[in-house]
């Protein structure tokens, strides 16, 4: 028993060291811009850079639109599959996994061939349309996470009985989805939303090949040309991702509790 506990600690410490030592080293390096003293100069330069602000804001806006699109597509689809088409679930699960198997570069080359300026749907003809195509691409990339988060949320409630209870009380579909289903899976939807946010903020391939001024290509550009700033940016990117994860944890405490799952 005691020996087992000892080795468990050894494994935990090794795993934590593997994860934290590079992170600590990066953080330490990012603060060594000023010779002979620790400082936040690299962070000041990065945060003060107009391109940082512009690209970060661009990616934040793209992430918000991606989340809206993802919620509009995934929530009704996952709900309907649970309610009326459970036999389609394995097929839909397979489809939603495809973005993990097919590299983003393949998807974006497909887009470029499909939606060029000569296409009936010329998404690449102007900036607004290309931005829309980028959001659609991001929604595709985040599909595995968003679908699973929402589906897991739906699994915790009795979708069919709650729907029927609302129906028999006179509710139509919009009332059922907005007042019964969505509030009960809101935390799951937010989990999916924050994962989507984290993916979009750091995404490079699609934004770069569609030539969009997003945060991912900016990170790559800084990394190729500067010494301390990329380390500062890496820490900032980590902080954003961890912030998202923490928000998921905090919000999950406010999830509606079911009688079967009181705690």
């Amino acid at each position: 028993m005691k020996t087992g506990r000892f080795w468990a600690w050894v494994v935990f410490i090794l795993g934590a060291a593997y994860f934290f030592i590079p992170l600590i080293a990066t953080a330490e390096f990012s603060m060594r811009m000023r010779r002979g003293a620790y400082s936040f100069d690299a962070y000041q330069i990065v945060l003060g850079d107009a391109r940082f602000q512009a690209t970060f804001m661009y990616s934040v806006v793209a992430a918000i639109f991606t989340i809206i699109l993802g919620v509009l597509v995934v929530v009704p689809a996952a709900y309907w599959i649970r309610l009326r088409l459970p036999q389609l679930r394995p097929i839909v699960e397979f489809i939603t996994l495809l973005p993990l198997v097919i590299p983003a570069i393949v998807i974006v080359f497909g887009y470029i061939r499909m939606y060029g300026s000569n296409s009936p749907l010329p998404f690449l003809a102007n900036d607004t349309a290309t931005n829309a195509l980028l959001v659609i691409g991001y929604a595709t990339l985040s599909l595995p996470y968003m679908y699973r988060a929402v589906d897991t949320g739906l699994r915790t409630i009795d979708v069919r009985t709650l729907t029927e209870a609302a129906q028999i009380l006179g509710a139509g579909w919009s009332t059922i989805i907005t007042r019964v289903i969505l509030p009960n899976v809101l935390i799951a939807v937010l989990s999916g939303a924050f994962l989507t946010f984290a993916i979009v903020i750091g995404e490079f391939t699609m934004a770069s090949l569609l030539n969009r001024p997003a945060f991912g290509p900016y990170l790559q550009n800084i990394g190729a040309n500067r010494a301390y700033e990329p380390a500062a940016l890496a820490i900032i990117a980590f902080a954003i991702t961890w912030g998202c994860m923490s928000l998921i944890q905090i919000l999950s405490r406010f999830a509606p509790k079911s009688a079967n799952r009181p705690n």
Partner: protein
Amino acid sequence: MAEPFLSIQHVRKSYGTNTVVQDFSLDVEPGEFVSFLGPSGCGKTTVLRMVAGFEEPSAGKIVVGGKDITRLKPNQRNVGMVFQAYALFPNLTVAQNIGFGLKVAGMSKPAIDSRVAEMLDIIKLPQMADRYPYQLSGGQQQRIALARAIAPKPKLLLLDEPLSALDAKVRVSLREEIRSIQKKLGITTIFVTHDQEEALSISDRIAVMYGGRAEQVGTPFEIYNRPATKFVANFVGTLNVLEGKVTDAASGKVQVNSQEVSLKGKLNGSKSGDTLSLALRPEAISLGRQPGHDASLSGEIAEVHFLGSVIRVRVGIGGNTVSLDTFNNSTTPPPVVGDKADISFSSGDMLVLH
């Protein structure tokens, strides 16, 4: 007879080649409490779901208050329903749950608040308004579900095995509460259950279902005492079934294990030589020959179970075994296994099963 409030007319429901409800018809009077009683898979819940609008009949018609509702959506029927799994909305408080249907109907907030308070008083939980469903016991949740169902004043109340998930004690008290609220409001109610005691204790009438059909529709007294089919007799209550042979159809003589019993007037359509299934309720049988009993059979005590206030005795009569209960009497010793014993009964209590 008054005009039926709910009329289910020749309803059939099939899924592909599988027919789960076949030619089901039933008229329910206003304010009546009717139970659908039957084993799992007999089609009782499917009929209820067709009345609610969750399933569309493959054939037949459902009329409520003179209006054909067969093709109406559930939210257009003004029907209340209580589900087995409570189905309270976890994100809403008790008051919000009860007021849900009223809000959907577009009632003003003061009107909703007043109706919710009235409902909470009816179910005797006025202090629970601000609680969430997870903070309530199963019995309390089901009472809230009942209040939610009746708050919008539905024309019809449907109860789909509402007591099945509760423990025995709560089940008994809640079924009495449901019946008293139903009587007070005068709401026409359909109650689905597989528990015969539940159905017998609270229903005006019972439809016993089997294989997608109504085997018998009648009052609890009729269903228990005059079962129309072998299935009803077996399903409702405990029954001793004896095989008998008609020896003289004209005078109603039947032979059970070489012993003759007279069943005058009960052998409609049977001929001499026919084999019959005869049934007796345990409470109709006495151990020993009792005054007032005009029929008897002899056998041997096969089993004796002491249950405290009652002694359950099984008497072997040839190839048949008859079960009966006698009250425990501290001055009389219980029967002994292997002893010869007579059982007696009134021939009028013997049922001929078809």
